[in-house]
């Protein structure tokens, strides 16, 4: 996706992918000041019953959100609301609030707000992001209780036209759910983090979201036209009219929500004009409503990321728990294949707040298969869980960050051991399960011929392959011009890997952002990639694109491009190809 850089562009942290455009609605929640009043002793009882009413109203709301989240997203995510309900009903805390109301003779909202502040303030100071996340959980609840007390309607009760982009300092998980139900186009927050519960909900709902956009509530005014790129975390304010209209014309379908777009997905699998079927697949992480839609369209999973299991709890769930999660996903997609990638985490994720184990350069550090092989017990739990979910033979195992064939051999041995153990435990699994490697470290691409002999498939992780090949951190703004998967060097590594796969008769896919890029897709197809796995939000456009191209033309295109020496020429040729499509 190319958003031309005109108009004011703000950069934040991508929290939920997808592209959206719409009119801004800025919500100033923190303007709500709480009045301090003296309550005459004779009115204390009615003040206490006001408090009880506000709490039970809040509990009812949370219960409704929990149910709605359960239906739309699924059990695990809905548990966020269980925690919030516990906070709302905390008996010890409410006892303190009641006592303070009685002894100070102050109004309920004031006392409640003050006591909550006493709990939150020290947490705000914490250097640990997971601890600070608790502040959002508590505030989500206290704001509801207080607005019930002051009788103020909140964001989710006010009427908005559809396709608005909501901007606030922060939103609660419940608010995100309500905004989604009322056809929000996207969400922007000035605070928050990508690991917050609110971001988790937004991702599950495929609602494009950018968090941590500095000064967004000051720079964006209600009514501004916004273009949101949830993949890169950028927000463009008031792009020039012609650009806005062009985007609108081209992308008009993108302003309606992704799920409904997916439901209206064209014929799947798509065929090129000259009748070649192109295999598209989805990248997924959290279980969500998207699974049913994808399964209904018989779309398989080219990359099932499992890191969220760890990131959500800070723990590796047991084999049984993992089995439950994998199995439910695998069953949903049956008979389509699900490629499960084993944990791809690094020291920056494992040791949050533990400086002694901090690495200077986590991207080049102890991560992916390296970490997994160093923690065989944890790795085996995951492998056993994946194997147990493979009974119906629609599961494949994908190993991340493999840089050397010895890592592959070690992992394969571990998988064999797990199989033997499972066999002795009387547990069933797919004895012929396919094992593949990610081609994302340049050494793996260069030596792909050696790897191809030992595995059943390749999957190119174009994001990491690009960042490692060009030594350019993809999150570093200053390097944005350097980081580009279309660089001739990256394309050459991809070509080497494709040739190795072909020579050894194994399929090769791409599962990085590149595979969902409308410009890069024809090139990848022409180069001989067998499967393009992408964020589900990109699938509708990808299907349409495939139906517009001739396979024969893409081969010519790939041939031309692999000879080109500059990135500029390559991009120009791809753009020209794209423009020539009708």
């Amino acid at each position, binding site marked *: 996706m190319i958003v031309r850089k005109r108009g004011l562009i703000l950069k934040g942290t991508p929290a939920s992918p997808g592209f959206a455009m719409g009119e801004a609605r800025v919500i100033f929640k923190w303007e709500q000041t709480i009045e301090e009043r003296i309550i005459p002793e004779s009115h204390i009882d009615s003040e206490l019953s006001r408090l009880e009413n506000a709490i039970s109203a809040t509990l009812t709301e949370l219960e409704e959100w929990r149910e709605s989240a359960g239906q739309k997203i699924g059990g*695990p995510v809905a*548990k966020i609301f*269980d*925690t919030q309900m*516990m*906070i709302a009903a*905390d*008996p*010890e*805390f409410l006892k303190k609030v009641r006592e303070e109301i009685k002894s100070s003779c102050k109004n309920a909202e004031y006392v409640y707000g003050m006591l909550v502040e006493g*709990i939150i303030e*020290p*947490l705000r100071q*914490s250097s*640990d992001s*997971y*601890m600070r*996340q*608790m502040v959002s*959980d*508590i505030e989500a609840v206290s704001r509801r209780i207080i607005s019930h007390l002051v009788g103020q309607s909140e964001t989710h009760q006010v009427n908005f036209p559809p396709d608005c982009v909501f901007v606030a300092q922060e939103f609660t998980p419940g608010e995100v759910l309500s905004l989604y139900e009322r056809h929000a186009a996207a969400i922007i927050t000035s605070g928050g983090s990508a690991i917050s*519960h609110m971001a988790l909900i937004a991702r599950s709902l495929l609602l494009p979201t950018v968090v941590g956009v500095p000064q967004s509530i000051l720079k964006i005014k209600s009514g501004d036209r916004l273009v949101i790129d949830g993949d890169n975390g950028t927000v463009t304010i008031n792009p020039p009219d012609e650009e806005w209209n062009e985007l609108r014309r081209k992308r008009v379908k993108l302003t309606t929500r992704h799920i409904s777009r997916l439901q209206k997905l064209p014929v799947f699998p798509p065929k090129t004009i000259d009748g070649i079927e192109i295999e598209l697949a989805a990248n997924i992480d959290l279980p969500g409503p998207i699974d049913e839609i994808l399964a209904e369209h018989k779309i398989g999973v080219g990359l099932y990321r499992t890191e969220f*299991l760890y990131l*959500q*709890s*800070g*723990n590796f*769930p*047991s084999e*049984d*728990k993992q089995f439950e*999660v994998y199995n439910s996903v695998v069953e949903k997609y049956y008979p389509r294949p699900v490629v499960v990638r084993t944990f791809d985490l690094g020291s920056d994720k*494992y*040791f*949050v*707040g*533990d400086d002694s184990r901090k690495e200077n350069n986590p991207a080049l550090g102890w991560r992916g298969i390296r970490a997994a092989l160093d923690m065989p017990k944890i790795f085996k739990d995951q492998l056993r869980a994946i194997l147990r979910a493979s009974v119906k033979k629609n599961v494949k195992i994908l190993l991340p960050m493999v840089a050397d064939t010895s890592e592959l051999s070690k992992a394969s041995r571990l998988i064999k051991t797990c199989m033997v153990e499972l066999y002795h435990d009387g547990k069933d699994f797919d004895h012929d399960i396919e094992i593949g490697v990610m081609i994302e470290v340049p050494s793996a691409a260069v030596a792909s011929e050696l790897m191809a002999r030992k595995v059943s498939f390749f999957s190119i992780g174009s994001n990491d392959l690009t960042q490692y090949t060009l030594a350019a951190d993809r999150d570093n703004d200053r390097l944005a011009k350097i980081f580009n998967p279309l660089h001739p060097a990256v394309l050459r590594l991809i070509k080497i890997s494709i040739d190795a796969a072909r020579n050894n008769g194994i399929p090769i896919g791409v599962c990085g952002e590149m595979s969902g890029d409308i410009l890069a897709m024809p090139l990848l197809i022409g180069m001989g990639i067998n499967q393009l796995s992408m964020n589900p939000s990109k699938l509708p456009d990808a299907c349409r694109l495939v139906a517009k191209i001739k396979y024969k033309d893409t081969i010519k295109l790939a041939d031309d491009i692999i000879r080109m020496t500059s990135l500029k020429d390559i991009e120009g040729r791809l753009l020209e190809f794209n423009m020539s499509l009708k």
Partner: protein
Amino acid sequence: MVQKTVKIANRLGMHARPSAMFVSHASKFQSEISVEKAGLRVNGKSIMGVMMLAAEMGSELIIFAEGEDEEQTVEALANLVSTGFGDLKDL
């Protein structure tokens, strides 16, 4: 009164969900329960209290219980914390 000192074992510390899990376990016992970290002592059946401890990985907690089932209470809760909240049930 029984007490036991434990170390937070899970890497992300006692954030929202481990706190919720601790409190829902604690609430199953009859005993009065309190938890102390670095001199700050809170009610072990209060999620707001437990969250307030902001107990990061490696920090020490003292769990106190008083009541008929105090032994089991302390044992069960200490076990929960030191095993890194076992299977976080919510995922």
